Every structure is written in C-alpha cells, then in structure tokens.
C-alpha cells in the first residue's frame, strides 16, 4: 500500500509539473520573473576572456548545418548565381562614413583565422575554422558615432512567414577580438547553407547569435523599435539576448 502510494505520488508529482508549468508559462508576469536572471547572468559572465582556439585536426570537415537552410528568395538566388559579384555589405546608421563593401574589398582587409567551437542552444557543438574580417576592424573603418550602442546585423533570409532574420551585439561584444565577420569556413569560401557570402562568428555566445547571410550592418542607439524589439529573430521568439550561458 505504502509502496503503491509512493509510486503514484512520485509519478503524479512529476506529471503535474508539466501541465502546471505549461499554464504558468503563458503568463506574462511569470515570464518577466523568470527572464529577470538574464541581466544577472549578463552582468556576471558577460563577454570576458577568449573562447578556446583549437588545432586543424579538431575541425569538423562537415560542419553541421542547423536552423534555416540557404535563403530561397529571388534576390539571394541572383547573387548566388553571379557568385556574389553584385553583393555589397552596407554599413550605415550611426557611423561617420557609411559605406558598401564588395566581397573583393572585404577580402583585402586584414584577415583573421580562428578555429573555435560553435555551441548550439540545442546542446550540440561543432568545431570550424573561420576566416574573415574582425568586426572591430570594420567598425574602425566606418567610424562609430557617439550615439551608437548596438551593432545590428540584418540578414538576407526570412523564416518563410516574411520575418527577416536579424541579430545584435552591444559595442563591447562587437569589439571582442574573436567577433568575426567570416568569409570562409575550413579554408573554402562559405557555402550557401553556412551563410554565404558573409556571416558573423561570436564563439563566446550560443550559436544563434552568429547570424548568417548578412546583408547590412547598422549601428543603432536602441533596438526597441526594430521588428519584435528584443534585438534578434530568436530573441523575438523568447530566447535570451545575452546568450553566454
């Protein structure tokens, strides 16, 4: 009897959690309380130190593709067909010298290579060799104006419902030496599934911060009025803006 009571109470306690929290999860106040620790984690962990860098032998030859596959819209198809000859990375917003850089121009800037681990929010990890331009170098080229607080990355893909993918970093994160605008993966130009022609790599945060298919970088004072107002596509779906944990 006692044993049966024990098993029944154990199972019902566990099973109860799912349905109770399912209801609570829809409550805005509950969500605000739960989300409050993001600021604490951001303040305590932040973006400090350097992500570990690995050797060539650690690299995954077939780096896992996740999330959305290559953009399917016509404009991207045209750019891909001409091997991104007409691609221009627009850098504007709160900058001294707005510009639009071709791939050739980006390739002549100082290149940085880093072999780092990509930690997905889903729990898996993969190691890739990424080469490209340090984001801080590009920021220096265009000159950040005093009002700028965030670097916003506008991407060339959408989720099929017309919502454009975007991401953001604050200037401290963007100035991190490993914040990289990658042009190459494993010694070859990025392929469409991995974000061609240009993607972000931020190895100190979870993978969803490393936006693919970047078309425009905009310096902004706030992202409150951009799309869902939370600073990124996945952030608008409920994921943390600070993704260091």
């Amino acid at each position, binding site marked *: 009897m006692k044993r049966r009571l024990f098993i029944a109470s154990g199972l019902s306690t566990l099973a109860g959690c799912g*349905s109770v929290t*399912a209801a609570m999860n829809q409550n805005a106040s509950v969500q605000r309380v739960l989300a409050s620790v993001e600021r604490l984690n951001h303040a305590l*962990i932040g973006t400090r130190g350097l992500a570990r860098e690995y050797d060539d032998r650690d690299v*995954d030859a077939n780096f896992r593709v996740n999330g959305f596959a290559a953009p399917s819209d016509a404009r991207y198809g045209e750019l891909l067909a001409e091997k991104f000859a007409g691609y221009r990375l627009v850098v504007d917003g709160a900058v001294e010298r707005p510009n639009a850089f071709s791939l050739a121009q980006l390739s002549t800037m100082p290149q940085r290579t880093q072999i780092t681990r990509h930690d997905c*929010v889903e729990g898996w990890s993969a190691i890739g060799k990424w080469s490209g331009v340090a984001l801080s170098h590009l920021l220096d080229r265009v000159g950040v104006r005093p009002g700028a607080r965030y670097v916003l990355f506008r991407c060339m893909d959408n989720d099929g419902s017309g919502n454009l993918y975007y991401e953001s970093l604050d200037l401290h994160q963007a100035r991190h030496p490993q914040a990289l605008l990658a042009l190459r993966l494993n010694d070859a130009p990025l392929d469409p599934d991995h974000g061609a022609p240009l993607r972000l790599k931020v190895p*100190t945060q979870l993978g969803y911060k490393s936006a693919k298919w970047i078309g425009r970088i905009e310096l902004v004072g706030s992202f409150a009025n951009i799309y869902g107002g939370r600073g990124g596509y996945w952030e608008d779906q409920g994921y943390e803006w600070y993704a260091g944990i």
Partner: protein
Amino acid sequence: MKELETAVVYRYGLLTRLSHWVWFVAFLVLVGSGLQIFNASPNLDASDKSDPARRVLAIGSPAAGVGTTTIFGHTFVTTNWLGWTGDGMGSRGPRAFGASIIIPGYQDLSGGRRWHLFFAWIAALCWLAWLVSSAVKGNLQQMILRRSDLSKLWPMQAYYLKLRKAPPPYDVYNPLQKAAYTTVLFVIAPLVVLTGLALSPGIDAIASPLTVAFGGRQFARLWHFAGMLVLIAFFAIHTFQVLTQGFANQMRSMITGWYRP
C-alpha cells in the same frame, strides 16, 4: 498531554525547513526543464564537441510509432516511455522525454531554458544561505560524514536489512543519513552546478580549465545529466523513507520543526 509535549523535540530550524521546501520545488523544476533542454539534442557524448563515435546515450525515433534508447551502443525499444512519447496535447510523436514530465509541458526550448536558469539561481543561492547559516549555528557538524562514521555504515545498513537487532550508536543523524547528506549536499550538488556552468560558452571563455576538467562541453553535459540521475535516486529513496517511517511525524517536523524521536 504533558507527556506528549515533552516527547517532541525541536529538530529543524526555520532556514533548514525553508531550504528543504525551496529545494523540493527547485529540484522538480530543474529536472523537468532540464529534460526539456535535453530533448532539443537527445544525445550525450563523452567528448568536447559532439562526436557520434563517443556517444554514451542516444534517445530517438527510428520510425513512426517507435522510440529507442541506445546506451553504450546497445539499443532498447522504449516506445511510449522514451523516444516516442506524448506531446501534451493528446497524441504521441518523436520526442525523447514525454511532454507530461518536461517543463513547460510542451516542446519549448526557450521556455525550458528560462525556467532552468531561474531555478538554478534559486537553488544555488538557497544552498549558500543554508550553508552559511548551518556553519554559523554549528549544525553542519551533525551532518557531515566523518572518518569515525565509516565503520558504522555497514552495521547501520545491516540494521535496516534486519540482519542486526540494534543500530550502532549515533547522535542526531545515523551514519547512512550522514553519508547521503554529505554526498548530495557537498559533492553532487556542487558538481551539478559546475558542470552546468562548464557547458556555457561564456563561462568556457572565462574559465576554460573548468570545461577541460570535465572532458569538454559535451562531456560536461553528460556529467550534468549523470548528476541529475544521482539526485533523482536520492530523491526517490528519501521520499520512500519519509513515506514508510512515520509520514505524519516526518512531515510535521519539516514543516513546524517539531519531531518525535
């Protein structure tokens, strides 16, 4: 009546009782939300990056209506329990742990992460407050397993197994209780916190020796899961003992503090 009053002793202070129930809630939430997070990538590898060649556990659904669990390369059919489970809305589908035991009770990784990271803070701060208070009050002495307790572990177990008429002499907690509390509070709980931190990219950048010490990110995830299994085992045995050894007395003592020895 007079006799009854003298028979009960004040056993648990307010902070101990409060910590106990905070941990109870936090534990259930952390397990449920942890399983939600696990479901997003239902594999555990003994490696730094994901590596199928070093896979220790894989839960999956090779075909519609079939759930399997593979441990060290041995595959078991676990349909309706693991791999092919309920979605919380009346039907079943490919999902490692069922919606009825994950938090929130449907597939929602970002939701699971918010519950998990919030209650991780609650549990850790509660542990710290309890530790400081217990150390100041001197209660820790009664709980920690000492060298002199080691020889009493088997006699105590023999007593439980009815192989011995009387338990070995002890003060407040018996040697097995001390062993369980010491292991859970001072070994497993800190390990679960550290392995959880070790699998975060921001922490790895600050303190990579921590991640390296556990064998890398995926290995830290494996240790984190294993720690949860140990805590579940403790929780199950603990609950069984409470239910079978004077449930009302045990509950009263952990709610009001008063216990009848």
